[in-house]
């Protein structure tokens, strides 16, 4: 087992040696690069990284350039999980056969996928990897939309969000269904560690990523990635929007250990109304029309009941 990297403060953390460099094509204000840096900077170990087709991939590896100072692979939209699982299998094989090039190293295997890649098209591959128990971490960059292709609805798109494939219009309020509970689904796979993180709560995030790296077996991380382009807010407001998400409990921060130990890791001092979170984003603008206002109430009820559920699960320890 490798040593846990000691991180004193944000200044030191933010100036750690970067293995994904700022020279990339992501939108100004994109949370992806913040999250990826927070994941990569949480360890000093070598990394084998995979990325699903999506914003992160098309913006960081455009030939003849690469933003990655770490081993990196992209195959397709659906299989970043299996790509890194294959690499992990090769590591195990070469370790057993004594053929590792640098046998003293203790690499970590990390797959990144957007919510479309995770909740929708790549779900089977992800599920298979977790059933087989590869020693890997899967990180969802959850911006609740197919952002790379221009804002189509995914299985993670929340109720009432306007997307290009489920737009709000004269007779429609946008997405008709709530997002999947991916955290519970992955915990139900028997994963030893499942956690939800947000880039604005960097200490919470680093702790969880480091726990994940110390955990043997498949680790699932759902990272909220506020999308300036598709959520429609100003690029400089990414962290402010992220604060609204965590403080309204739309994105509660918690972890699930071995499927049964649920821990809430962030309890906002002042819980803000969901209305404030929705109102800060263009994708929900139409919900504030009179005929749609009931949906804001429905949102609040759902978030209240989810928070209640989380707390009961935390207490029950079953």
């Amino acid at each position: 087992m490798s040593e846990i990297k000691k991180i004193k403060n944000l200044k030191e953390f933010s100036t750690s040696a970067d293995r994904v460099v700022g020279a990339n094509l992501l939108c100004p204000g994109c949370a992806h690069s913040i999250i990826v840096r927070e994941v990569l900077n949480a360890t000093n170990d070598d990394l084998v990284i995979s990325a699903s087709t999506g914003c992160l991939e098309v913006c960081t590896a455009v030939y003849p350039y690469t933003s990655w100072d770490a081993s990196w692979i992209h195959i397709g939209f659906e299989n970043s999980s299996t790509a890194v699982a294959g690499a992990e299998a090769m590591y195990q094989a070469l370790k057993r056969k004594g053929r590792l090039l640098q046998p003293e190293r203790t690499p970590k295997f990390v797959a990144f996928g957007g919510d479309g890649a995770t909740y929708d098209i790549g779900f089977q591959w992800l599920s298979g990897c977790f059933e087989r128990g590869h020693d890997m971490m899967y990180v969802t960059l959850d911006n609740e939309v197919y952002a790379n292709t221009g804002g189509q609805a995914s299985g993670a798109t929340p109720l009432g969000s306007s997307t290009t494939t489920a737009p709000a219009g004269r007779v429609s309020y946008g997405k008709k269904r709530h997002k999947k509970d991916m955290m519970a689904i992955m915990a139900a796979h028997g994963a030893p560690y499942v956690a939800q993180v947000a880039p604005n709560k960097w200490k919470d995030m680093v702790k969880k990523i480091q726990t994940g790296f110390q955990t043997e077996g498949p680790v699932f991380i759902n990272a909220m990635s506020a999308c300036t382009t598709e959520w429609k807010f100003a690029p400089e407001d990414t962290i402010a929007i992220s604060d609204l998400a965590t403080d309204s409990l739309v994105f509660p921060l918690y972890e699930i250990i071995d499927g049964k130990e649920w821990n809430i890791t962030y309890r906002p001092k002042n819980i803000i109304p969901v209305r404030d979170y929705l109102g800060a984003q263009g994708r929900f603008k139409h919900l504030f029309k009179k005929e749609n206002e009931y949906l804001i109430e429905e949102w609040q009820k759902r978030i209240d009941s989810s928070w209640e559920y989380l707390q009961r699960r935390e207490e029950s320890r079953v």
Partner: protein
Amino acid sequence: MADKMDLLDVEVWDGNMAASQAFRQAQIDVVAAYPITPSTPVVENYAGFLADGYVDGEYVMVESEHAAMSGCVGAAAAGGRVATATSSQGFALMVEVLYQASGMRLPIVLEVVNRALAAPLNVNGDHSDMYLGRDSGWIQLDTFSPQEAYDLTLMAFKIGEDHNVRLPVMVHQDGFISSHTAQGVKTIDDDTAYNFLGEFQPFNAMLDFEKPASYGVQTEEDWHFEHKARQHNDLMTKVFPKIDEVFADFKKLTGREYRILEEYAMDDAEVAIVVMGTSVESTRIVCAELREQGIKAGVLGIRVLRPFPMEKIAAALSGVKAVATLDRSSPNGTVGMLFNEMSGVMINATERPIINNYIYGLGGRDLTIEHIRGIYGDLQENAKAGSLQQPLQQFIGLRGPKLSFY
């Protein structure tokens, strides 16, 4: 360390067991696989070897063929020897990742036990899956018997893994007729077989942390074409010399001779059949019979489908008067692939043979000796008349009214 297996000089193996044994002897580092008829026994046998300690690599039993090839790509990019097996629908599900594997220049070996593609659903052998893969940038080796499945599967690693080649290789065998038909297979002992391949030599391995590599990057109109052109150029120029070299080494080792184009009685042939898979052997039987009757018949067996040995074919067909191309895949709206390829090869020749096309054996339908005699009969008519005497395309062994086109 995996245990060695004592093999008899001649083992009774079907094509699937022959492929599994080649996999075992190659000491593959990662097999990621998903079972499908008729290739299932390849991975079942391999799992049995693992369970008994004859394999010490990783065996990842994934949840689909797409994941099988995805895992193979990740493992191969990490830097080691990788292989899997599939058929038919599984092959079709893999197709997306087949292009990724070749585009990333990863020398994966894929045993394709050929089977028909649905609908209607059919588990028997034809070449529609093999044809589906022919533009995927892989090297495609075709075998005609379990012995050849064993030999070519071993050689596939040596061909694809060469640092000048670095391309994935499919080894094809006919579903059931080869895969499930036990024959005497001459074996190579474990050490000799492994030493013939040698230890895998990594190239831009993801597990080399001193030299991190990015795999599967984006290229648009500025660079995509150059990558594809370079891959094609390497297929056309670097693969044949390597195959020749490996075939020569293999002959030295075993006495068994393979050629890029398997010519049978072609030297002075006037009528010739071009065919693939187990039907090559049936066609040779009829050809020998015709030779005894003084008919100048020949057989061209396609050993290497991709890259396609155009120059060798042009030379072999030079002087032949009539050629039949036998395709075991529904052309669905045009002529068969082999007809197209042969026509393309011969179009600029000074003496062009008359070429026609037969579709046969779909979904495992038998191609009988009598059918092949009939085809040679057509060819003799065409050769004598100096022009095509039948429709350009005919279906062989089909129930109901005789279908033919053009």
